[in-house]
């Protein structure tokens, strides 16, 4: 469709982050490498130190175990932060996390309306998956996206790395599906711009993030990884 009022594919929200370099495939690959190096820098000394302690002085085993646990836990905490970007945030005005209504229960009206609009934006498979997992699967040029209420996961082509982005609509009154639809429309308008506006929370192996996701969301990550492994996915593998 050739729209008379259409503007260049750049998100207007980019004006709020003029200092940021545009997040393209090259940027993501570079950032992934940096993340891997930084992870090695803070885990290897702890891991090597724990082994060294045992070798040099076996009586230090308890301390060595604690040190090794730190080497394991720090990346896990980062992965937890990454997975948290797509955790359900709850209905407006309520503190309880939103859960999909069980069959036969009357849904929250605003959320039901929003769910209908979001469903119209997705194809059949993506709609069913979104309703079951809370995440909308969206193929892109940078990889395969999973869009939630207040964040998105980008599975890089090949499926061996996931980038976690924290991004939201600063309107607490919106129902959860509207928040997802906001992010989805922004992503479809300008994928690189969307990734630039979003805050990068984590980059690493998908299995680390998967362990920290709520169980109902995990099939969405599995499907996205499968899609990211297919040849049709983008070509920004790091």
């Amino acid at each position, binding site marked *: *469709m050739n*729209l*008379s*009022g*259409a*503007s260049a*594919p750049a*998100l*207007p*929200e980019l004006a*709020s*982050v003029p200092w940021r370099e545009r997040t393209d495939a090259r940027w993501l690959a570079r950032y992934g490498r940096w993340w891997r190096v930084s992870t090695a820098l803070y885990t290897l000394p702890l891991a090597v130190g724990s082994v060294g302690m045992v070798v040099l002085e076996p009586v230090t085993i308890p301390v060595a175990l604690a040190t090794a646990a730190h080497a394991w836990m720090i990346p896990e905490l980062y992965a937890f932060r990454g997975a948290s*970007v797509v955790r359900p945030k709850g209905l*407006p005005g309520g503190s309880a996390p939103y859960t999909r209504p069980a069959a036969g229960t009357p849904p929250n*009206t*605003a*959320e*039901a*309306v*929003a*769910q*209908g*609009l979001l469903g119209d*934006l997705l*194809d059949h498979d993506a709609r069913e998956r979104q309703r079951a997992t809370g995440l909308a699967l*969206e*193929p*892109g040029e940078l990889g395969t996206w999973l869009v939630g209420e*207040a*964040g998105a996961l980008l599975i890089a082509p090949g499926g061996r790395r996931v980038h976690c982005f*924290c*991004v*939201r*609509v*600063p*309107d607490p*009154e*919106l*129902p959860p*599906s*509207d928040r997802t*639809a*906001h*992010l989805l*429309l*922004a992503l*479809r*308008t*300008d994928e690189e711009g*969307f990734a630039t*506006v*979003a*805050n990068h929370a984590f980059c690493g192996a998908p299995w680390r993030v998967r362990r920290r996701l709520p169980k109902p969301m995990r099939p969405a990550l599995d499907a996205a990884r499968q899609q990211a492994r297919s040849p049709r996915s983008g070509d920004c593998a790091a």
Partner: protein
Amino acid sequence: MARLIRMDATGHSTLAEWATQDDAAFEAALDEFRTQLDLGYIGTVPEGPGKASQVRELPREADLVILRRPIAGG
């Protein structure tokens, strides 16, 4: 019938509807669209799977125009 909708606390609200040949309805929709832009909303036209366009003027030929809030890094 084309629709101008706004995502809001009710899920979404239909602000205007128009047919391509109905100038009066389109003008009313145009006024509403500009008012919403002044309030900080962003006009977006879904264009099928995986595509959407931002619009600064209401496209008469679009089937659906969605007004959304700006996003921000969390």
